C-alpha cells in the first residue's frame, strides 16, 4: 500500500525512462492530454462563465463565456435570502478552522501514543483505530444525532458543537493513522537523547515530536479544512436554523427556489463557495499531490 511518510521524496531516480527526446509520440500524447484537460475544465469554466452572464444571456447565449461580463449575480446571490451569504461564509469558516485545530491537536496526541509509547493493550487499541477507518459516517449519523439531541446540543445555544466535538476527540482515524506513519519515520535516537537529558514522555512530545511533526500537521490541516468546507451530510443533519447554515447547506436553498431567475445568483455563489478550496489548491498544489501520493488520501 502507498503509505510512506507525507514528506518522503518519491524515488524519482527509479524512472529513467522518463527522459526522452520529444518525438511524434510525445506530440500525440500532448494532444490527448490537452483534449482531456479541456473536458475536465469545461464544467468549471462554464460555471464561472454562467455566473457572470445576465439572466437574458443565460437563456439565449449557449456559449461558454458571456458576451458582456455582469457582476450582478454576485450581488444578487449574496443577499438572496433573509440572511446574507456573508454569514454563511463566516459560519463555514469558523466550523472549518475549528475542525482544523481540533483534528490537529487530538490526532497528534493519539498518534504520539500509538507511535512512540508502550502501554498495555496498545496493539488492541491500534487495531480498533484502524477498524474505525472503515466505518462509514452514515452508520453513525442516526445515533449521534439522537445522542447530541438528547444532550440538547442540536440547535442549542451553539449549534456547531455536534459538528466539532467529534473533531476534538480524534475521531478522524485517517489523520491519526497518517501521523502515526509519519512519526514512525522520526529517528528514535532523538527520543533516546532527550531521555538521557531527563525528558519524560511529555518532554519528548513537546520538544522532539511536536516540532518535527510540522509536515504531517500541515497535511492534516489542509485536508481537514477542505473536507470540512466541502462536507454536506453532517452539516445538513445538524444545522436547522437559517442563520446557522454553512455554505453548502445554504446553497441547497437555491434548489428549493425553482425559479429560473435564481440560476445566475446560484452559480455566482457556487463559484464563491469553491474559492477557498481553490485558493488552498493553488497555494499547496505540490504538497497536496505529494500528500496524496504518499498517503493515499481521498479527495
Amino acid at each position, binding site marked *: 500500500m*502507498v503509505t510512506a511518510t507525507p514528506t518522503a521524496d518519491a*524515488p*524519482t531516480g*527509479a*524512472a529513467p525512462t*522518463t*527522459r*526522452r527526446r520529444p518525438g511524434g509520440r*510525445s506530440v500525440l500524447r500532448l494532444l490527448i492530454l490537452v483534449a482531456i484537460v479541456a473536458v*475536465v*475544465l*469545461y*464544467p468549471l469554466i462554464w460555471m464561472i462563465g*454562467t455566473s457572470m452572464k445576465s439572466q437574458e444571456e443565460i437563456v439565449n447565449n*449557449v456559449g461558454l463565456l458571456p458576451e458582456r461580463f455582469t457582476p450582478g449575480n454576485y450581488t444578487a446571490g449574496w443577499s438572496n435570502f433573509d440572511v446574507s451569504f456573508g454569514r454563511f461564509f463566516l459560519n463555514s469558516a469558523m466550523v472549518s478552522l475549528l475542525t482544523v485545530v481540533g483534528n490537529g491537536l*487530538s490526532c497528534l*496526541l*493519539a498518534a504520539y*501514543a500509538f507511535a512512540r*509509547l*508502550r*502501554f*498495555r493493550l496498545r496493539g488492541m487499541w491500534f487495531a480498533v483505530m484502524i477498524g*474505525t477507518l*472503515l*466505518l*462509514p459516517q*452514515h452508520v*453513525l*449519523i*442516526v*445515533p449521534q*444525532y*439522537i445522542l447530541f439531541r438528547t444532550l440538547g446540543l442540536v440547535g442549542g445555544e451553539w449549534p456547531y458543537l455536534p459538528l466539532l466535538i467529534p473533531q476534538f*476527540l*480524534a*475521531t478522524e482515524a485517517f489523520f491519526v493513522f497518517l501521523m502515526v506513519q509519519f512519526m514512525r519515520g522520526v529517528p528514535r535516537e532523538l527520543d533516546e537523547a532527550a531521555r538521557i537529558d531527563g525528558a519524560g*514522555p511529555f518532554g519528548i512530545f513537546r520538544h522532539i515530536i511536536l516540532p518535527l511533526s510540522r509536515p504531517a500537521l500541515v497535511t492534516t490541516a489542509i485536508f481537514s479544512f477542505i*473536507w470540512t*468546507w*466541502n*462536507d*454536506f451530510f453532517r452539516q*445538513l*443533519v445538524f444545522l436547522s436554523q437559517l442563520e446557522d447554515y454553512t455554505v*453548502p447547506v445554504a*446553497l*441547497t436553498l*437555491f*434548489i428549493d427556489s425553482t425559479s429560473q431567475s435564481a*440560476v445566475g445568483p446560484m*452559480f455566482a*455563489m*457556487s463559484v464563491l463557495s469553491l474559492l477557498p*478550496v481553490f485558493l488552498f*489548491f493553488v497555494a499547496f498544489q*505540490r504538497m497536496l499531490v505529494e500528500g*496524496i501520493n504518499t498517503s*493515499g488520501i481521498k*479527495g
Partner: protein
Amino acid sequence: MALTTAPDPTRRGPGSVRAHAERRRPGRFRHSEGLAGYVFLSPWLIGLMGVTAVPMLLSLYLSFTNYDILTPFSEVEWVGLANYERMFTADPSYWHAVRVTLTFALIAVPLKLAAALGVALLLNRAWRGVGLFRGLFYLPSLLGGSVALAIVWVNMFNRDGAFNSLLSLFGIQGKPWVNDPDWALETLMVLAIWQFGAPMVIFLAGLKQVPTELYEAASVDGAGRFRQFRNVTLPMLSPVIFFNLVLETINGFQGFTAAFVLSNGTGGPVDSTLMYTLNLYITGFTDLNMGYASAMAWVFLLAIAVITAIFFSTGRFWVHYSDGEDR
C-alpha cells in the same frame, strides 16, 4: 519505612541492591510511560466511546425498535426483527435503493479507475508542465463532493444546459437528462468518473515504483508495448489497483451529495437516484423512522464489511507484492 527498603536477604547474588535498582528502573519507566500513553490517548478513547462505540450500540438497539425522535426513550417500543423483516421482504423502495447503489458502483467505479489509470500512464513521464496537468486533473476530485459542483453538474445536464448545447453543435437533439429516470443516474456516474484525479495520483505513485530494469528486460525479450503493459505494468501495479478498487468501491456506495442535489433530497426522478445513503437519510431524518434507519445502517455496515472481505480474499489471486510476501 526503612524496613521495606532494606535489601531482601533472600535475594541471590552479591550486588543485589544494584541489580535490584537496575531491574526496577526500566520497569518503573515503563509504568510512567504506560500512564502517559493513556493520558495522550484519552481524547481518542473518549471519542471512541462517546462518539463511536456507544452510538453504535445505541443504533443496534434502536434497529430493533420503532423509534422516532419524538417519543421519549422510556416509551420506545421493542419490535424485534420487524425492521429487518420489513427491509428484506416488504419494502420495495429499499431493494430499489440497493439496486441503484449497486448499479452506480458497478459501472462508475471501474470506468473511473480505467480513466485514472489511462491518464496516469499518459502522465508517467517527466517533462516540463507535467505537474500542471497533474494538478488540473486532480482539481475536480479536490472540489469533490461539494454541493456547488453538484449544482453545476445538474445544470449542465439540464434541458438547456451546456451538454445539450454541445450536442447541438453536432446536430444532435439533446434531452433533459437529469429529469429523465433512464438517464439521471448516468449523469451522476459521469460526475463520479470526471473526478478521476484522486485515484490517478495514487496510480502515478505506483507507476513510479515499477523498476525500469523490468521494462528493459522485457524489451530485450522482444516484448512490445502492449505486452510490457500486460506482463510488467499490470502485475507490478496490482497492489495499487487493489487499493484504489477497495477505496473507490466503498466511496461509491456512500455517494450522497450529488444524488441529494439532483433530486432535491427525494431520490427522484421516479426514485432513479435513490442511493442507499440518501434512502437512509430520508427514512431517518425526513420520515423520522429512526429505528428503521438504524437497521438500514447496520445492514449497510455489514454489506461493506462483506464486500471488503470478498475483495481481500479474492485479492490473493491477482495481487502481487514485489517483496514476495502475499499479505
